[in-house]
């Protein structure tokens, strides 16, 4: 079975490009050109030079001794939190900004949840001198205020999305509407492996540098490129796609994806898409989607803005459906506790999104000989406000 996108833009039965005709030319332009552009030699040179000199890659693969002792196994942390701007999101925005320039686009739009993708887009635009407009749900603007100010400081305009749950889904709707209204000069930098084909594949390929580096670093450290487990949190699924990418066809590597259960999968306040979702179409692709029986999209909930999304990328829907990936979900409280645990065990304050990946350690029985890689998708500075706010509720010591 293939876990890569097929020539029609599908992963198994998921994917495609379900866009209104107004967006067809934009998406088609990308579809026809993205492979040629990103595999072209000068693109690769520019991309890798910027990843090295600007983003700070390769990011370290760190052997977490105390954490390993705690779980009686070998745990390595892939430090995407050490990327410039503090999360993996910039791998994608650097790639897409070079792509946008080659497509002669003058104006960049993006959606953001946690604000990390917005910040990474604003950063790339400042670097290249391009106009930048970021759509962000009003609720997220409040809970990720620092990132709003970072975007503004770098010259981006942050436009509030005021409809629906006023979170990531609604910001994505607004970005798509902007693109309909500005089809010629604008490139839409989607922040995850979601959206119409070719976006899921484009973003996965740009993020695949994560697993490319893990392979080399593990080879160096343990003499084999392959771990037993790769663990990553899943909002739309871009950090997971990047961390899984070069292991997709290697069945000896277990791929563990962690979704946000919110207040619990049955609480009505959850974002555990594989658990609660059914096949449906949102934001241009057929995927697993949280929805009512009548096909209306359900408003998700997660304490972490970056996981607060009612769908997952089509590649992950296929990994779930085929059994290649194993999906877990973690509650707000479990993630919160894991964030404090990892801060105290390793001196690394993770993003709330990333904390979900750590929380799953309690749910898996590892062998002492296992090699476990956790993708530390981002750092927790942006979440300090939330950590302070809920500390008394969740942490009792």
């Amino acid at each position, binding site marked *: 079975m293939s876990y890569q996108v097929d020539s029609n833009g599908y992963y198994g039965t998921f994917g495609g490009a379900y866009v209104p005709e107004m967006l*067809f030319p934009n998406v088609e332009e990308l579809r026809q050109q993205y492979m040629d552009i990103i595999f072209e030699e000068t693109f690769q040179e520019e991309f890798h030079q910027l990843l090295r000199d600007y983003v700070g890659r390769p990011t370290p693969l760190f052997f977490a001794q105390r954490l390993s002792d705690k779980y009686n196994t070998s745990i390595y942390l892939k430090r995407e939190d050490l990327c410039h701007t503090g999360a993996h999101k910039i791998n994608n925005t650097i790639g897409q900004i070079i792509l946008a320039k080659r497509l002669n686009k003058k104006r960049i739009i993006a959606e953001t949840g946690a604000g990390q993708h917005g910040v990474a887009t604003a950063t790339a635009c400042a670097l290249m001198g391009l106009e930048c407009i970021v759509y962000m749900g009003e609720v997220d603007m409040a809970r990720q205020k620092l990132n709003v100010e970072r975007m503004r400081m770098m010259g981006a305009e942050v436009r509030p999305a005021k409809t629906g749950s006023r979170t990531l889904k609604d910001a994505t709707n607004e970005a798509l509407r902007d693109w309909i209204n500005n089809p010629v000069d604008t490139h839409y930098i989607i922040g995850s492996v979601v959206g119409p084909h070719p976006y899921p594949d484009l973003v996965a390929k740009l993020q695949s540098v994560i697993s490319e580096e893990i392979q080399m670093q593990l080879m160096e450290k343990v003499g084999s490129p392959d771990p037993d487990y790769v663990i990553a949190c899943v909002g739309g699924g871009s950090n997971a796609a990047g961390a899984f990418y070069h292991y997709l066809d290697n069945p000896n590597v277990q791929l563990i994806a962690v979704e946000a259960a919110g207040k619990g999968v049955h609480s009505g306040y959850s974002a555990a898409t594989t658990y609660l979702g059914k096949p449906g179409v949102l934001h241009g692709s057929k995927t697993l989607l949280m929805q009512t029986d009548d096909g209306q999209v359900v408003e998700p909930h997660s304490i972490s803005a970056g996981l607060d999304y009612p769908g997952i990328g089509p590649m992950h829907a296929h990994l779930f459906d085929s059994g290649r990936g194993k999906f877990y979900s973690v509650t707000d409280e479990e993630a919160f506790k894991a964030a404090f645990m990892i801060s105290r065990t390793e001196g690394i304050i993770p993003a709330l999104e990333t904390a979900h990946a750590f929380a799953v350690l309690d749910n898996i029985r590892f062998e002492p000989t296992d090699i476990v890689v956790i993708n530390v998708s981002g750092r927790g500075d942006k979440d300090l406000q939330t950590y302070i706010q809920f500390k008394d509720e969740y942490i009792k010591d």
Partner: protein
Amino acid sequence: MSTSVVLSNRIIQLFENKKENILNIYFTAGFPHLEDTVPIIKSLAAAGVDLIEIGMPYSDPVADGPIIQESNMVALDNGMTVKKLLDQLKDIRKEVSVPILLMGYINPVLQYGIEAFVRDSSAIGIDGVILPDLPMEEYERHYKKLFEENNLSFIGLITPNTSEKRLATIDRLSTGFIYMVSTNSTTGNESKSTQAVDQYFQRIQASGLVNPRLIGFNIKDHTTFAHACSFAQGAIIGSAFIKMIRQSDNIHRDIPSFVKNIRG
């Protein structure tokens, strides 16, 4: 080249009998109140509109501007669903003969089941469907036969940026008419540069399409309607109508007067 079956429904008959000034009015089912759907249809039919397009509300209408977004939200809050709508319309052909289209985003239709949706719509006398985010390729591969067997028109959309090649594909696959989106925008926007728009209208007018065309998006009054009609068989009004019924305290008085003003 074309394998398409010739349909026979009220849309096809309309375009056979009438070649100009065709007025299609769009409204959102279940807005402003859940049970307004049938009264609005009757009122529009009595006022002499040529075609009625009923929007099936969706939580995430990405091609729509603020006015239709809001009508979608209100309709959903009122409890409108595809099932409820088809139920409201089950006896509609006892009362009105004007052609009726259903328009909506694909997801609610997928959940209802496309096959069931096509069969049930056809059985109650719906004449055509617009599904803006169902790709033409998917339609051709999976659903074309189903639509034809059920005598239901499938209406494709084109925009100023639609390529020549794609225009031909959309013309080949559309059965009834082509929905010409007037500008690159979401619904209910102010129209931009009219010269560029006119050039696009002229280009399409001269392109020899098999299907007749209706122009939609940003048509709001007699002037914009008449202007659009000079380039196509007719035009579609949506946001302006929604805005009117939102403000109206008596739709049976205001709908005929709205239609009269559009016709001029």
